[in-house]
């Protein structure tokens, strides 16, 4: 993204205060690897702060900057300068996938093919010192399944207290993957409970909110409630609708920095509910709660150009997750009751994000 595009995007957003009435805002920088462009991000953040002040904008002092990084250049001087300058308004997550073996399956340097684990893990202590409450997020694909238990425990051992983990929504799942997921999660449940990790650590695979029939009609995904801007200045309801994120469909643009947002194209996103886009089988599913979807993936796999047809590729993985959750919560609460600690646990338990993109 050029500075000119970034500036025009900020100008558009801040000068249309009525179109963005939300109390607060998160300015999220995603890549590729965003910290490779830390100079540009720094300039953008300065401009946002200055503009909000000059406009007496209602987001002034009610904003955050958010960055998800692979963590490789975390300790570089200019990155550190940026962090220190914006620390009180900055959320910064490092994506580390687990053990070295697991991490280096997917995160390798172009050319050499060498894994990046060693270059990331050495930056974790400083990161946790600066952002002690930060979590890491891990997405699970078919080939990652055998490493779930050891990876989560490894991340806990690095001092990361919250591991947000979810299965990808794409149709990558092979026969028997649900059994592997369930087996790994049962093993993880035993490790967390038997070693008392549950007292200080949390993994989002385990949540009391999943399983059981649908209770509400809310949409799962936040597409349309955010605004994504690409390097050319096009607007999307989420980056998942940009061309580079889609396999089958054309990009779904809802405006640009010159013409603004086409509100008619945004309407379908803001009218999405659970039942309108779900099959009868999903609506009636006895363990539907917590079974999520990605609107972009739904769009990409739909039989027509619609966001109103839900992809169900994750179905058997969700059901496996529900079974493992049943085991986890039954085992944990029985232990807590026997040890007389249930009440205290309920009072202090860490709330984790149910799902992440």
């Amino acid at each position: 993204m050029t500075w000119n595009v970034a500036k025009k995007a900020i100008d558009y957003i801040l000068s249309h205060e009525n179109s963005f009435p939300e109390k607060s805002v998160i300015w999220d920088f995603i890549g590729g690897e965003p910290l490779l462009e830390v100079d540009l991000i720094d300039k953008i953040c300065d401009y946002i702060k200055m503009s909000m002040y000059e406009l007496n904008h209602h987001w002034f002092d009610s904003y955050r900057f958010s960055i998800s990084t692979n963590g490789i250049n975390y300790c570089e001087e200019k990155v550190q300068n940026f962090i220190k300058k914006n620390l009180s308004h900055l959320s910064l997550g490092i994506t580390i996938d687990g053990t070295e073996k697991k991490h280096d399956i997917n995160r390798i340097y172009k050319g050499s093919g060498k894994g990046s684990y060693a270059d990331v893990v050495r930056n974790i202590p400083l990161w946790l010192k600066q952002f002690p409450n930060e979590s890491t997020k891990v997405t699970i694909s078919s080939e990652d399944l055998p490493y779930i238990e050891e990876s989560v425990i490894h991340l806990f051992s690095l001092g990361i207290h919250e591991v947000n983990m979810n299965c990808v929504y794409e149709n990558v799942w092979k026969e028997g993957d649900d059994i592997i997921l369930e087996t790994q999660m049962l093993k993880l449940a035993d490790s967390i409970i038997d070693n008392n990790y549950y007292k200080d650590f949390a993994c989002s695979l385990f949540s009391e909110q999943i399983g059981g029939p649908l209770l509400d009609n809310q949409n799962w995904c936040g597409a349309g409630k955010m605004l994504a801007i690409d390097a050319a200045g096009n607007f999307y309801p989420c980056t998942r609708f940009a061309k580079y994120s889609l396999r089958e469909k054309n990009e779904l643009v809802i405006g640009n920095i010159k013409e603004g947002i086409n509100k008619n194209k945004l309407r379908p996103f803001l009218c999405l509910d659970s039942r309108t886009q779900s099959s009868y089988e999903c609506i009636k599913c006895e363990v539907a709660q917590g079974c999520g979807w990605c609107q972009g993936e739904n769009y990409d796999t739909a039989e027509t150009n619609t966001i109103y047809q839900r992809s169900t590729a994750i179905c058997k993985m969700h059901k496996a997750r529900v079974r493992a959750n049943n085991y986890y919560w039954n085992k944990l609460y029985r232990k807590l009751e026997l040890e007389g600690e249930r009440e205290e646990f309920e009072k202090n338990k860490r709330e984790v994000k149910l799902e992440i993109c």
Partner: protein
Amino acid sequence: MLQYLIILLDKESVSFCGLTPSPSPKGERSCLIPLDTLKQGIRFGMIENLMIQYVYPDYELPAEYSKVIESIDHSKIKPMKDGADVWVTGSIKDIKADVSVVWRTDKQSLFNSEADIISALENVPRLNVVLTDVETFTDEDFENYRSLLNAFAEHIEKLYLEGISSQLNLLTDRMMFSKINNCGAGDTTITLAPNGKFYVCPAFYYEDETDSIGDLEHGLDIKNKQLYKLDYAPICRHCDAWQCKRCIWLNRKTTLEVNTPSHEQCVLAHLERNASRELLNNIRKHGTFLPEQEEIKEIDYLDPFDKRNTWL
């Protein structure tokens, strides 16, 4: 459930909805539906128990078509008055007919034709005004539209008092309906084009011939067909502007989804709804009128999308 089959007798059949098809290149001949395709279409309609609506081009069909056309109960939509059940015209001036008239117009012509429309209301049993540029309406246009509807309502009220039951779709339909009544494209109605393929509606064919939903040889194949139904239209299923066209083609054009109307379509439909409410209340002041119809409630919005938090 399917109920209607629209058969376009020619590629140049008259448009009776919001889409204005691009004119064929100069010198290109019209494309009349092959007689065999027409027969197969009629057979399909009979088997599926569908009411057939023929849409005519602006020239006389070859004599051999007449017998085939008459082989099933049907209605005729024509760009000429003679022999039409519905006459589609591009001009409102001095019209007189004893059949229903569809006047396709852009907003500017509509705003400039108040007197002609008022005159037409006395000379045709039913006038359907179809706007061809709904998506271009601005706030100023909405105000003009509101004023125009009020003027028409005043005149229709006078006609009722004189014993003349004049029908103008924009105003009198809502008073008569007890539930939504729209074109039903893809749900209750499908279209057969001269190429032997089925389409959601004529506009889908005129816009992109590859956008078909099956053909006579292999039958219908409507992907995501539930999305054409009211239950799967998140805004419309909560709406009581029952006279709204709920134009599926315009939905897709403006919002990219067949089940989601544009802001402009919703506001126009609600201006009509509210004007119908006024008209109904005013006529009822003179005596009993449509006693079986419930009152149209007063509402504080023009676009139900703005009230989505009450039903989401």
